[in-house]
């Protein structure tokens, strides 16, 4: 038990479960299944972008990818436009989305490395280019996804939303990458001290490049799935995932300064972020109070998580 509470991600789960209980309590448990499925579905999207952002943040101070929303919008619009509702082109669409993610990730790191622009500026300016490309490709039109994809993203297997299963699979891959491969050790080492990592012979540039690439590809896949889930791509569909992708990483107990990351916390934080809004909506709290409450609750969770860390160190 003590070991469990020493985990950095535990507080996000404690928060998610308490909010979940408080919400279903209103209806005496009648909303349990509906709320849980909705929470898993919407948390899955935050998890996908959150994992990518977590790898980037692991790289250490100053590393962040602000092009996530624009990448989602571009990947979603281009893939849906290409598939044009035809079931046979589902895989082609996914490959296009992944290529778009790869392109954005490569350009992001090219700006950071070749032009020596700080990541926050490089990815922000890249997001303008990408967003404009998304506007230019389809002028804000909303094209329906192929029926098989719409069905897949909105249905459940054994009571668990398919989207959540996809996110779970990606999380497992991310966990293995982070804790069981040299790549994971290397990016943790880079995050803890870049000069030390370089002296230890780690290929710093290669690893950073792969990380930005990975983040952009995950954002693109998320945009592809979200567009299919919500019945069409929209230019503004990624906008709330900019802050969300960073928030779930921080609430999940990953060190903002880099070098110390964990995957489970992303899940706890994503579930929590959806449930806290649902809870406050369910209690009928006004928008102003709701935003304040959301902020206060997030700060509390972060304080709890970081307080524990200090105790250990």
């Amino acid at each position, binding site marked *: 038990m003590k070991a469990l509470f020493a985990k950095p991600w535990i507080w996000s789960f404690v928060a998610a479960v308490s909010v979940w209980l408080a919400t279903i309590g209103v209806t005496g448990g009648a909303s349990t299944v509906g709320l849980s499925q*909705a929470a898993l579905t*919407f948390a899955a999207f935050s998890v996908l972008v959150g994992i990518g952002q977590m790898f980037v943040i692991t790289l250490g101070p100053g590393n962040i990818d602000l092009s996530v929303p624009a990448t989602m919008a571009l990947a979603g619009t281009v893939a849906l436009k290409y598939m044009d509702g035809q079931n046979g082109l589902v895989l082609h669409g996914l490959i296009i989305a992944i290529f778009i993610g790869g392109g954005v990730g490569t350009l992001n790191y090219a700006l950071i490395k070749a032009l020596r622009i700080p990541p926050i500026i490089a990815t922000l300016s890249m997001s303008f280019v990408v967003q404009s490309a998304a506007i230019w490709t389809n002028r804000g039109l909303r094209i329906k996804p192929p029926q098989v994809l719409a069905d897949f993203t909105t249905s459940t297997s054994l009571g668990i939303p398919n989207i959540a299963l996809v996110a779970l699979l990606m999380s497992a891959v991310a966990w293995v990458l982070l804790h069981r491969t040299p790549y994971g050790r290397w990016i943790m080492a880079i995050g803890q001290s870049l000069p030390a990592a370089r002296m230890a012979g780690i290929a710093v540039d290669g690893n950073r490049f792969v990380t930005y690439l990975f983040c952009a590809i995950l954002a693109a896949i998320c945009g592809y799935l979200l567009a299919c889930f919500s019945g069409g791509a929209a230019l503004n569909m990624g906008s709330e995932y900019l802050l969300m992708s960073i928030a779930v990483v921080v609430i999940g107990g990953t060190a903002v300064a880099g070098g110390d990351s964990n995957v489970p916390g992303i899940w706890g934080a994503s579930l929590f972020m959806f449930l806290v809004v649902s809870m406050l909506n369910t209690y009928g709290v006004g928008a102003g109070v709701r935003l304040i409450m959301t902020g206060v609750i997030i700060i509390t969770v972060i304080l709890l998580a970081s307080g524990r860390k200090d105790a250990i160190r």
Partner: protein
Amino acid sequence: MNTRTMLLASATILAVAMPALAETSDKTIALSNNYAGNSWRQAMLTSWETITGPAVADGTVAGADAFTTAENQATEQAAQIQNMILQGYNAIVLNAASPTALNGAVKEACDAGITVVSFDGIVTEPCAWRIAVNFKEMGRSQVEYLAGVLPEGGNLLEIRGLAGVFVDDEISAGIAEGVAQFPQFKIVGSVHGDWAQDVAQKAVAGILPSLPEIAGVVTQGGDGYGAAQAIAATDRPMPVIVMGNREDELKWWKEQKDANGYATMSVSIAPGVSTLAFWVAQQILDGNEVPKDLTVPFLRIDQDTLEDNLANTQAGGVANVEYSQADAIAVIDAAK
């Protein structure tokens, strides 16, 4: 002297050729737009091009250029307006990022002798014209419609827009007025959908499990389809969802209508309101007396006009009408 003679001659020829248009044929009008990132704004810009292109070609005005700021920031748009003053436009048609923050720049433009016509996102500076939307009535009319189709009343779910924005408060106040007028309705839940289908879908999916049966959903536009998606994912009966003229909403409505006779209505402002503002600016430049406050007509779609409107709406766009010079004169006369 020579130039002057030439100008005089061409003016005389123009005056003979098209006497009604001579007054503004050398005038330029600029569109200052704060945001282009959604389908409504894209349709607004397309309408502007569709109407002003021929107007420039046939010499009604000398130029009608559209400019959009990148960041949806009032400071950026104020700088844009200052540039337009320096470039010497005769009129600026403005969809403003803020009702008050641009007042300084707008006053500068007025002082430079430039006509400023704000629409949709209006400015409070008294020297500018305002083509405003009666958002309160838009909210109230939704409840009135529901009272017609659901005489026994019931529970309503309200989907609001972006918290803290003037438009959201106005439409919501109108809905509250409507509920006071028709007390058989009760708002049992309220979420913010940010005028985006995916945000609305997420918010509705989150509150739905805790709600009793819903008879109707009142919306602000751009959120009806998301609400329908969220409700369809449960085993609840489909309530009457008031739509907001988006193509995906109308298409979904049409599918339901064909399948089971589903009935609702849809109301919003046509993005072509930018062309109404263009003609109003042209009328002012032409020397006509125009009241400072004008009201935009709603574009309402009902069960019997659904097919026509859907056929005229671009896939993925918004139901639209473009206004003519005659329409603008009619709106001006109505306000006098």
